[in-house]
């Protein structure tokens, strides 16, 4: 029988048939595992053969209070024989559970599914355990995305035609040019510049190896986030989509965005960072 159970609006602590000290330890552990869960409820302790002593009652009261439960009192458990049990059960008002048709069909359906599993077990089939499957699969090592290593030959430009979808990623030592849109959720990482002949909506990281003179150009610069070298900028305000072609660059450690006409010529930027 469970140690702690609901009864009416409150709780019952069932000491009957248990060693008191063990029950107390179990109760403490249970209350500690769900702190605050029973807070504010009242409890009655049910004892079996011997009424608890004053010290035991105090100890119990303290443990319960630790869980926010008030001990109302003690009562003796009565051993009920078979006939008496039946009599009491017959007297209890019947609670009709009315299930809707859908609920009934579902209950039957689940019974069917469980019967299916039971049948498989009887036939000696193990419902396939995940552990077995793991054993037959070869372990796939966790692969980190390729680090951009510095290569000696001049970096090339990756030229991609088409829309880049969310979750797709282009990475290049060199520049990246996309003719198409870059959707939110996509990312572009380049050690050089990034040029999007379309709408840039995802994350673009130019100068990914530390080149703060790198730039991000787009016909529609609506990136979720822009990164150049180690600077990061998120679109703070409401930029309307009608801004026209723009570029992002770093000045004084911050990322700035300017319309194409206003953009300082790349050669004029020099070694600014």
């Amino acid at each position, binding site marked *: 029988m469970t140690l702690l159970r609901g009864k009416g609006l409150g709780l019952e602590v069932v000491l009957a048939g248990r060693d008191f000290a063990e029950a107390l330890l179990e109760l403490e552990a249970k209350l500690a595992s769900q702190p605050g869960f029973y807070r504010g409820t009242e409890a009655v302790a049910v004892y079996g053969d011997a009424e608890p002593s004053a010290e035991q009652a105090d100890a119990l009261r303290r443990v319960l209070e630790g869980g926010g439960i008030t001990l109302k009192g003690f009562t003796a458990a009565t051993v009920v024989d078979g006939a008496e049990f039946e009599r009491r059960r017959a007297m209890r008002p019947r609670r009709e559970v009315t299930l809707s048709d859908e609920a009934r069909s579902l209950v039957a359906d689940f019974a069917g599914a469980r019967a299916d599993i039971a049948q498989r077990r009887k036939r000696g089939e193990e*419902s396939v355990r995940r552990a077995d499957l793991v054993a037959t699969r070869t372990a796939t090592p966790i692969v980190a995305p390729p680090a951009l290593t510095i290569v000696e030959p001049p970096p090339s430009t990756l030229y991609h035609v088409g829309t880049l979808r*969310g*979750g797709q990623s282009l990475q290049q030592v060199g520049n990246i040019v996309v003719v198409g849109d870059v959707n*939110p959720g996509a990312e572009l990482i380049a050690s050089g510049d990034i040029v999007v*002949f379309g709408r840039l909506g995802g994350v673009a990281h130019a100068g990914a190896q530390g080149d703060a003179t790198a730039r991000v150009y787009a016909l529609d610069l609506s990136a979720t986030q822009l990164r150049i070298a180690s600077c990061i900028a998120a679109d703070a305000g409401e930029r309307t*989509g009608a801004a026209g072609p723009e570029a992002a660059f770093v000045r004084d450690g911050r990322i700035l965005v300017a319309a194409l006409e206003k953009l300082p010529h790349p050669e004029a930027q020099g070694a600014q960072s």
Partner: protein
Amino acid sequence: MHEVQPEPVPVAQKAKRGRAIVITSGKGGVGKTTTTANLGHALAARGCSVALIDADVGLRNLDIVLGLESRVKHNLLDVLDGTVELDDAIVRDKHNASLVLLAASQTREKDEVDTEKMKALVERMREQYDYVIIDCPAGIEGGFKNAVVGADEAIVVCTPEVSAVRDVDRVVGLLGNKFRPQLIVNRLRPALVKKGKMLSVEDVNAILRLPLLGVIGDEPEIIVTTNRGEPIALRKDGATAAAYHAIAAKIAGEDVAAPTVEIKASGFFGRLGAMFGGAK
């Protein structure tokens, strides 16, 4: 509302290999299963033979939506394992005999599906049916990959919500160049769109940039029909039933029909028009 008259299919045409279409989205709860069931019925009503496959192993629902759960004795995995013949596993629909279902298992797992066998099964079924439509599970894991493997056409279903659009976009990217997916926008509420409290079809397709197959409104009736297992496409009237029949007609028309809604794209390629038409 006009009635769709089923067109008898001349026997000679049956020699042609059927089409295998996967219905997918990435995001759960957008209406893949409901769409599969209703499109199946709409195509069957046109006189085509249609097989529906529930690829959501372990979380099967297509049978409930069709009202056939009590008739399902065997499932997809039984057929793939070879313990049961395909003909014994398929369940004929109670309203239309040219529509059949191959249900998923409720007690087994998606990683028990052998990809090659799944592909072979879909190939086999294409010899027998005009359409094989595969109901894809949510997500982009193994279940998704197995659902897609046998198909050569895809329909993505998207609701007008930012999360759904993101997920569908991801899936379109994963479908890759083999597919030219078409889009169904589901659960649109024009009143909310007008109030600015819901994305419009244009908003959705500004990101997805897919050929639009159809738009379905959000009727509370749909929940009733799926709970009761009576797909709404069976009805003779109502906007939703008509929408599904129109989509079926487009699918059967065998050309990528022009979208019924003007796409005012905010990306660049809509504006540049003919030069960069359609998404890649």
